[in-house]
């Protein structure tokens, strides 16, 4: 059975891998998602920064809960990997500067 990854593992080992993924990976995800949201919100720059930052803690909470609710750790890892496209959206002017 291949689908049992994450369920047959010892509970403490599972938690040991999940905790850093949820805490650090979750922060990375929230950081980039907040930046992307701030970039995309169709309001003035200042308001966009404030609104997205105020929402960030809820986002972080949801990510941590999701990281524990999902069975396979691989999906949590995929969730963290979403940070890359989000960072590209949030920081595209800075990205262009670096690439230029």
């Amino acid at each position, binding site marked *: 059975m291949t689908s049992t990854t994450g369920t047959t593992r010892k509970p403490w080992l599972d938690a040991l891998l999940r905790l850093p993924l949820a805490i650090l990976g979750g922060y990375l995800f*929230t950081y980039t998602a907040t*930046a992307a949201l701030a970039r995309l919100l169709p309001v003035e720059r*200042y308001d966009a920064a404030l609104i997205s930052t105020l929402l*960030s*803690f809820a986002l972080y909470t949801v990510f941590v809960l999701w990281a524990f609710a999902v069975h396979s750790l691989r999906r949590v890892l995929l969730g963290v990997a979403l940070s890359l496209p989000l960072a590209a959206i949030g*920081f595209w002017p800075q990205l262009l500067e670096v690439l230029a």
Partner: protein
Amino acid sequence: MKPRSLTQSMSSLHTWCGLLLGWVLFAIFLTGTLAVFDRELNWWMQPELPASTATQTAAVETAQRWLEREHPDAATWNISLPTDRSPVLSVSHGEQRRGERTLLDAETGEVLEARQSVGGNFFFRFHYTLHMPRTIGIWLVGFAAMAMLVAIISGIIIHKKIFKDFFTFRPAKGQRSWLDGHNASAVLLLPFHLMITYTGLVIFFLIYMPAAIDALYDGDRQAMQRDARATSAQQEATIARGEGRAEGQQASQRGEGRAEGGRNRGERPVEAAPLLPLADFIVKGEAHYGVGMLSALSVSNPGKADARVTVRPLLGSRIELTKGESLVFSGVSGKVLQSPPPSRASQLTQRVMAGLHFAQFGGYPMRWLYFLCGLVSCVMIASGLVLYTVKQRKQAKGSRVFLNIAERLNIATVAGLCVACVALLWANRLLPAELAARGDWEMRVFFGAWLLSLLHAALRPVFLAWREQFYLAAALCLALPVPQLLASFPTDGLRLGVDITTVALGLVLGWLALKIPALADTHSVTKPRAARLAGAQQ
């Protein structure tokens, strides 16, 4: 090979949050609850001071006379006005707003001597820094708050029968009672727990989550502040003239550059000009903020043509947290140089959330509500901590060594911190009033008492350690008014309030200590019924 259910995974998350940060959270919540009455404790901790009955106008006249006589050449004067919660006039001079303060009798202008004390401010600072270096402390508290938020939401998911649980309490039934107590205190004030945790995070939101500033402002906070002010045309004009700029940036810069304006002006000669009576500015300030809503006044370059008078409101003239806000006048002409622009909607949202956490609005009824809700939060966290060890002991799984450590730490955190807090108040009364660096000694007593309680918890049997520490805390609380009575210090409503509240808390702690034998039958692992209940738990 059944995959674990949502309830199971949320339950393990809930446990992890409690295990990693439950102890820290209890300390944060208890000191935060006490900090609701920080000013009252400050006042209580300087018992020599008589309450001033003078009006703010009279007080500011006294202060001006004293400062003009003693420090006519100071770059800045700061006057802290007597208010309902802190009925004393204090002045300071020089560049630092928080420098050495001189306490004055508001009527006669005599200098008052009072013992040095950390005051209720200690609880306030401990609440958000844990007495660590500021940055580290703020991050650790923020991390704990996130864990709290996650614990609350995962707790809600675990309890599908949330409303039924609220009406369920089976006292003296061991683990069941602990679970019911934890559930009831959590469900009862669920909105409060959520609100206080989220708004706590919002206070330092840009420190915790600088993503948006990094993305949109390249991490330049001052550029963001400039954007915030750009809406008000009047504000822009003020900035263009360069007047009052240092004042306007106070909120963001916290200290650096605070006196910059004053110092730069000192270099070029400015002709002398008489300062208007400061009482005038009280009237002007009250016209803007409301009668009795002012807390402080500062004057930069007094006696010079470019003197500026800054009037600060009391926090809590509205829900919005107005920290750092002020009205700036010319000290010579009395004209308004700078008035706070109305907050824009997004900024107002953040400030109202921060204000909800600071609980400075709504006067004493609101303050009491926050205090009682905070106590219920403490009960919720403490019962969760105890529930964990009770459950572990019953199920006889996991490491005994860890269980033992957890039980001892529970005692030192919950009962020990209660002892330490009241020990701080006793240190305030018993340490010699003229002791040098007296505030530091008060803190040493606080941490010393806490450390001793940990030692005591480590050496005594668990059940006895709980009981003895609660009895000690209760006795210390109940006897706290005695030194006050013996020394016959002036007493007033504020100090009496602190004494009565402490005695009431002492009664509650004593009741807890009495109840411990009934609660502690859970510690006998042999009962088959208990084992069955524990099995049915998950």
